[in-house]
Each structure stands twice: as structure tokens, then as C-alpha cells.
């Protein structure tokens, strides 16, 4: 198991950094956006998609060298991909495996789908409550409309 993992992660062997694994292929670039990876200029970022996986048909993977994200940042991923696995790599070894956890409140992460919502008409942050953890159903703090998992769009 450990060997297989090493092989899998060795696509671009990482000495130190973060590997986000088991990302559903349709969510990969959303995760890229969520973590602001496009704006990173001085660390190496490797993005792979449509890779073979045992757990799902195809998967996406993101590797970021020399960067460790705060837990709070990683938990935001749960909004779009609740089953990702985050590997913390130090000295070529997986030293920690984390599962992301959906926070109770999502501040300025998700966009409200209601065009008549105040958040889409004022320069302000969005705020959602997680009302159903299992199905990732959110409710806008302002207009009170529910947002279902398949309708979630990031801000």
C-alpha cells in the first residue's frame, strides 16, 4: 500500500509540500481556483487530471511544493470536493494524511445564485450556512435561499 502510494505520488516527486489527491475530475479546476494557485509565482505547482484511480473512475491531483496550507483553507475544499485526501509531504515521505471537513459557515467562498440577492448587488462578502452536511446543502445568510450541491458556484 505504502509502496503503491509512493509510486502514485512520484509523478513529480515532491520533497516537501502538499498533495491534494482524489479530486473528482470535474472539480479539479475549482479547487485550483479556490486555493488561488494561479497567483502563485515562486513555488512549483503540478496539476494532473483524468488520472486512473482505484477509488473512482478518474481523478485529479494537485501538488504544491514547499507550501503547507492552513487547515481552514483546506476545509474550504470540502464545499466542492468533500472526499479529497490531503497528503503532507516532508522529505519525500507522507507524514500526514488529512480529510477535509466542511465548516459550519462559509464566508466569501460561495456565490449566491439569486441575482436579486444583496450579495450580488453590493460590494460585500457572501455568507452561507451549511444546513445539510451530508448532501452539502447551503443557505444564504442574507436572502435565505437554499443552494444545493450541484448548483454551488465559487465566488
Amino acid at each position: 500500500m505504502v509502496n503503491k502510494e509512493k509510486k502514485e505520488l512520484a509523478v513529480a516527486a515532491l520533497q516537501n509540500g502538499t498533495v491534494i489527491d482524489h479530486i473528482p475530475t470535474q472539480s479539479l479546476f475549482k479547487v485550483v481556483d479556490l486555493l488561488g494557485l494561479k497567483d502563485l509565482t515562486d513555488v512549483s505547482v503540478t496539476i494532473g487530471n483524468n488520472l486512473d484511480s482505484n477509488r473512482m473512475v478518474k481523478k485529479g491531483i494537485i501538488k504544491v511544493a514547499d507550501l503547507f496550507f492552513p487547515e481552514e483553507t483546506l476545509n474550504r475544499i470540502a464545499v466542492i470536493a468533500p472526499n479529497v485526501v490531503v497528503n503532507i509531504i516532508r522529505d519525500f515521505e507522507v507524514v500526514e494524511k488529512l480529510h477535509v471537513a466542511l465548516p459550519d459557515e462559509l464566508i466569501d467562498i460561495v456565490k449566491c445564485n439569486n441575482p436579486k440577492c444583496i450579495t450580488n448587488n453590493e460590494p460585500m462578502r457572501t455568507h452561507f450556512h451549511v444546513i445539510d452536511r451530508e448532501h452539502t446543502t447551503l443557505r444564504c445568510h442574507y436572502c435565505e435561499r437554499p443552494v444545493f450541491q450541484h448548483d454551488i458556484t465559487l465566488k
Partner: protein
Amino acid sequence: MDKHSLISISDLNKEEILALLKRAQEFEKNPNQRILAGKVVASLFFEPSTRTRLSFETAVNRLGGRVIGFSDPKSSSQAKGESLKDTIMMVSNYADLIVMRHYLDGAARYANEIASVPIINAGDGSNQHPTQTMLDLYTIYQTQGTLENLTITMVGDLKYGRTVHSLLEAMHHFKPRFKFVACDELRMPEQYKQYCTEWGIEYEETREFSPEIINQTDILYMTRVQRERFSDLMEYERVKNIYTLTASMLTGCKPNMRVLHPLPRVTEIAQDVDDTPQAYYFEQALNGLYARQALICRALDL
């Protein structure tokens, strides 16, 4: 919430609702009390609503307070492109309380985060209109002597009508039974039926607006069926007449039964109902004054 704003009816618990009803009752006995002397209330109507505005401004005036604000959004600073935030910041400096109506959903909740003074939501888009719900509750209490164990029949537009949704939510404290009467296009949305199930509230859904239903009812809550809700105008013409209440439909009703309507009505209540003892929609509108007086006092801790 120590500011005692009122943004959504769900901000109030059962005890608070009952305390407000008692307070409204005092104002019904004596609406002229100089409780607000020296206070300034801002009445900000970003969307015109003469009915609601007059009710609020009368409430303030009868309590001896003063009103500032605007009733025509075209003359307000928003028309010049000012953000809601800036308007609220400015008005917070002048007033002790802000009553606001806005065309955007969630505007009042946002204003409440910014304002240093309490906010009373007088309607935010299609979202909430909690003072309407308070006056509905007060009217039910006034006519039935209680809010507990009543059969409430809602008729007409149950899909888009925010008043029926808020009333349904507010009534969950009081063990109601609901009957939802609507055509397929305007049925009570799934989320509210689910809400009933979650709270163990009995409900029945039907397309027939029949005497059998009316005869079991304590409160008959009529709503306006709007033409613009229909993609098929033929369907509108048909439905409009089916869900019209006439005096002859009331012959077998319970003596305590009362007909409510948030007004304005169009054709959903025939004129001949006005002369029956069951008609209560004009008194209901007047109750808005007392309910709003109670809410203003609560907001200012008076």
C-alpha cells in the same frame, strides 16, 4: 441580538411573539402614547409601498416620535449610485431606529450588520416581511382568543406568496393544522411541506376550494393570484375564478371563522363577503398599526 432588530420572523421565539401580542393589545386599547417622544425614526423606502409606509409612519406619530426618510427611491441617494452601506451609515448617525423596505433579498440583514441602530425590515424583495406576519398573528390571536390548535386554510398563490410562508413558519410554535388550497402551478413549495413534517404539523393539500374545507376552518387566509405568475393565460383565467371566495360559500362555516387577506385584493374575495361577519381583512390591516407600534417599542427597548 441586543439591538432588537427584526429582520425575519424566525428571529423571534415563542415567548417574544406572545409578549409582542400583549403589547399590541395595549396599543389597540390606547394607540396614542408618547413613548417615542424625542426619538427620530428613519423610514427608508428603497421600493415604494404606500400601505406599509403609512402604517409605520402612523405608528411612530401616534407614539410621539418623529419620522425622517424617503418614500420615493428615485429621489434617494441610491438613485445617484450610492451603496446601501453608505446610506445606512449616514442614516445611522441621525436616527434612533431604521425602518426599511428594499427591492433586494437580504438587504435588511446586511443593513443590520452595518447599522449602529436597530433595523426593522419592512420587506426585503421576495424574502421576508416580518411585520406583516406579526399583524397576521395578532389578528388570529384577536379573533380566536388563542394561537394554539387552530385550523388554518391558505388559498391562492402558495408558491410565491411570502406572507403565507412566513405565517406558516411563525405558527409552528402553536400546533396548527394547515390546509393548502391551490392549483398545481401555485402549490406550496416542497421545502415548506418538509418544514411541516419536521415540526410534526398536520397538513392537507388540495386543488378543490370546497365548502367541506371551509367548514373545518378557523382562519381562511386568502392570497392574491397574480397574472404574471402564469405562463398560460387561459390557465390564469380559469384558476382566478376557482379560487374566488363568495358569501354563499360561507353559509356552513364555524361561527368563529374569519377571512384574512394581506391586501390589496383583486378578485379573490367577492364584494359580497365584505358584509358577512367572517370578513376581517380591513380590521387586519388596522392591526398592522398596533403590531408595528409593539415592534418599534421592542426595537428601542421601551
